[in-house]
C-alpha cells in the first residue's frame, strides 16, 4: 500500500508541476522559486487531477482504469511537450522573472528565519497531534467531505447515490475537489486510509503558509515574506481548522494562489500564460466550495474594472481572455456537476421574492451582521487577548505606512477582490433563509479564515517593507549615520540620502 500511495503523491505533484511549467515562466533565483512552485504544483495537481477523476467516473463506473490511463496520458503529453519544445517554447513566449529582492535584508533580522521555522515546527506538532486523535476530521470533515469520498470509492457504478436530498444535512450540492481527491488517492492505494485525507489537509495548511511566505519573499522582501508567514502560523484557528479536514483552508489556498499568480504576472510582464494559470486556480476554488463561485465573480469583476480603468477595454480583453481560457474548463466541470448531479442548494432554494425582500429591508439584520463582522475580525483566529495578531498588524500599518511605489494593477485587483468578497459574504448573510444568529455563529469565523491568507498577502504587498521603511526615513542626518551603521542599514540610509 505504501508504494502505491507514493505513486499517488508523485503523480499528483507531477501533474501539477507539468501544468505549472507550461504556464508559469521559471524565476531566476533557485530555491525561493522552487518552494513557491512546489506549493503551486501541489495545489494544481490536487485540483486538476480531481477534475480528471470526476470526468473518468462520468465516462466509466470503473473509474480507476480510466484514471490511471488518462493521468498517464496527460503527464506523458505534457512532459514530451516540455522536453521537446521547451527551448523554443520558453524563448518564444516568456522570459524568466526576477524576484524583487532589490533591497538589502536587515542583518538584525538574521534570527528571523530560524524563529519562523521553529514556530512552524510547533504548528506542525499541533497539527499532527490533532490529526492523530481525529483521523476522520471534525464534523464537516467526516460528515461532508470524507463521507462523499466514501460514496465515490465504495459506490462502484452507483457512486452518485450520495447526491440526494435525503442527506441534505451533509450538503450534497457541495463541489467535489476534496472528496474526489481523497477517493482518487484510495483508488491509487487500493484501500481506504485516512492517511491520504490527513496528507491532503497537511499539504494545504502548510502549503498555504509556504506559498504566502515565499511569494511575498519574491515579490517584496525576505522580511516581509517571513512576517506574513509568521502572522498566518500565529493564527491558532488556521492550524486547528486545517487539521479538522474542513474545506475552508484548501479554499483559502486557491484564493491565495490566484492572487499570487496575478501578481507574479505583473512582475513577468510578458505573455498571457500566467493569466491562464490564475484562471485555473480561481476555477479550482469554485470546485472546492460554493463560496469559490463568489470568488470567481469577484476576481473577474476586479480584473475588468481595474484593467479598463487603467489601460482601457483592449487591455482588459487581453487580460480577460487568457484568464477565462483557464477558468472555463474547470467551471464546465463545476457546472456539469451542479446541473446534473447536485440537488438544489438550500441557500438558493430558500429564497423567494417576498421573503428575500423582507430580509433585505430589515435594518436590524445589517446591524447584527456588521457587528458580528467587526467582532470576528479580532477573534476568529482564536488568539489570546494579549497575542492578537490583527491588532499588531494595525500598529505595523500605522508605523510603516503604504508603499505606493510598488502599487500595480495586481495589487489593485487583490484589494478590489477582497472588498468585493467581504461584500458578497455580507449579502449572503443578509438574505440567508436560516436563522441569522445561528448562521453567523457557525460560519463567519470560517469565512474570515478563508480570506485570511489572501488578506495577509494583500496587506504585506501594500505595506512598506521594513528595509524600505527604514531606508526612506527622511530624518537621517549625517551625524546619525553611526546609529544606522550600528543597525546594519548604513547603505540604505546613504542611498536614501543620495536619492534625496
Amino acid at each position, binding site marked *: 500500500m505504501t508504494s502505491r500511495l507514493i505513486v499517488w503523491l508523485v503523480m499528483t505533484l507531477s501533474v501539477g508541476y507539468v501544468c505549472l511549467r507550461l504556464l508559469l515562466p521559471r524565476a531566476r533565483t533557485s530555491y525561493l522559486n522552487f518552494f513557491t512552485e512546489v506549493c503551486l504544483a501541489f495545489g494544481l495537481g490536487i485540483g486538476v487531477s480531481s477534475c480528471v477523476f470526476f470526468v473518468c467516473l462520468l465516462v466509466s463506473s470503473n473509474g480507476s482504469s480510466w484514471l490511471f490511463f488518462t493521468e498517464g496520458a496527460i503527464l506523458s503529453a505534457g512532459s514530451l511537450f516540455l522536453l521537446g519544445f521547451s527551448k523554443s517554447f520558453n524563448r518564444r513566449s516568456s522570459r524568466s522573472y526576477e524576484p524583487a529582492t532589490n533591497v538589502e535584508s536587515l542583518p538584525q533580522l538574521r534570527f528571523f528565519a530560524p524563529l519562523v521555522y521553529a514556530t512552524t515546527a510547533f504548528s506542525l506538532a499541533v497539527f499532527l497531534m490533532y490529526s492523530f486523535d481525529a483521523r476522520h476530521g471534525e464534523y464537516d470533515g467526516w460528515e461532508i467531505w470524507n463521507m462523499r469520498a*466514501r460514496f465515490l470509492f465504495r459506490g462502484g457504478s452507483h457512486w452518485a447515490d450520495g447526491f440526494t436530498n435525503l*442527506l441534505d444535512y*451533509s450538503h450534497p450540492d457541495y463541489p467535489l475537489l476534496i472528496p474526489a481527491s481523497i477517493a482518487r488517492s484510495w483508488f491509487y492505494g487500493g484501500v481506504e486510509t485516512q492517511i491520504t485525507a490527513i496528507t491532503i489537509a497537511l499539504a494545504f495548511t502548510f502549503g498555504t503558509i509556504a506559498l504566502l511566505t515565499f511569494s511575498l519573499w519574491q515579490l517584496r522582501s525576505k522580511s516581509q515574506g517571513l512576517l506574513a508567514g509568521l502572522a498566518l502560523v500565529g493564527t491558532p484557528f488556521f492550524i486547528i481548522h486545517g487539521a479538522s479536514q474542513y474545506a475552508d483552508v484548501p479554499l483559502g489556498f486557491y484564493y491565495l494562489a490566484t492572487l499570487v499568480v496575478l501578481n507574479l504576472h505583473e512582475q513577468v510582464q510578458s505573455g498571457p500564460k500566467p493569466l491562464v494559470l490564475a484562471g485555473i486556480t480561481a476555477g479550482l476554488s469554485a470546485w472546492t466550495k460554493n463560496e469559490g463561485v463568489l470568488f470567481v465573480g469577484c476576481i473577474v469583476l476586479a480584473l475588468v474594472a481595474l484593467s479598463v480603468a487603467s489601460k482601457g477595454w483592449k487591455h482588459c480583453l487581453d487580460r480577460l481572455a487568457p484568464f477565462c481560457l483557464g477558468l472555463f474548463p474547470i467551471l464546465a466541470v463545476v457546472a456539469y456537476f451542479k446541473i446534473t448531479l447536485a440537488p438544489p442548494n438550500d441557500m438558493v432554494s430558500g429564497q423567494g421574492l417576498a421573503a428575500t425582500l423582507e430580509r433585505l429591508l430589515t435594518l436590524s439584520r445589517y446591524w447584527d451582521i456588521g457587528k458580528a463582522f467587526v467582532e470576528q475580525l479580532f477573534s476568529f483566529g482564536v488568539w489570546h487577548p494579549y497575542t492578537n495578531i490583527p491588532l499588531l498588524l494595525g500598529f505595523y500599518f500605522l508605523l510603516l505606512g503604504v508603499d505606493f511605489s510598488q502599487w500595480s494593477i495586481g495589487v489593485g485587483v487583490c484589494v478590489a477582490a477582497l472588498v468585493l468578497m467581504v461584500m458578497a459574504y455580507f449579502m449572503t448573510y443578509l438574505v440567508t433563509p436560516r436563522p441569522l444568529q445561528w448562521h453567523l455563529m457557525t460560519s463567519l469565523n470560517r469565512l474570515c479564515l478563508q480570506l485570511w491568507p489572501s488578506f495577509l498577502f494583500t496587506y504585506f504587498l501594500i505595506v512598506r517593507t521594513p528595509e524600505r521603511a527604514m531606508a526612506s526615513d527622511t530624518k537621517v542626518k549625517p551625524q546619525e549615520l*553611526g546609529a*544606522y551603521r550600528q*543597525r546594519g542599514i548604513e547603505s540604505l540610509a546613504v542611498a536614501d540620502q543620495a536619492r534625496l
Partner: protein
Amino acid sequence: MGHKTPLIINQFDYPARVLWLIHIIVAVALLCNGLLLKQTISLRRANALGSGKVSEYVTRFEPVRSLLPSRGRIGYMSGPNPEILNMEGDEYTAVQKEYRLAQYALSPVIVRPATADIVQELPLLIVDEYGGDFFDAQLRKKIVPPQGFVLVRDFANGLLLYRRERL
C-alpha cells in the same frame, strides 16, 4: 575617532521602533504557537482532543457493513422512539450525531432515521443501543424491538440488525 554615541532616547528613533515592532510580532507568534502546543498536549493527556469517538464508532459498524447490500436505504434507530430534533424557534432540522455517524460508517447505503412514518418502508433496520440517550448500559433492557421486524444478528457491541418481516 568614531561617531558620538547617541543618547538612549535618540536610539528609539524610527528604525528602532520598526525593529522593536517586528520583534514583538515575532515574539507574539512564537507565544501563540507555544501556548497552542501546551494546550494541545494537555488536552491530549486528558483524552479530550478532537472527536476520537468517531474512530471508535465507525469501527463498531464494520461487521454490520459486510451484511448490508451495496446500495439502497436502511433504517437507523437509537432507541424505542427515535425522532428528528428541531432547533429552537425555527424550521431548521437537526438530527442526532449518532445517526450521522452511522451514515458515515455505512456509506454508500443511505441511512434514514427510522421515524414512525417511514419505518415500515425500510427493508433493514439498525438499532444502536448505545447511540442517542442510550449510553447507560442499564437502559438496554428497556429497548423495545421494532414492530414488524425480526432480528438478523446481534453484534454484541450494542448494534442489532433487523429485517422487515414479510407479510
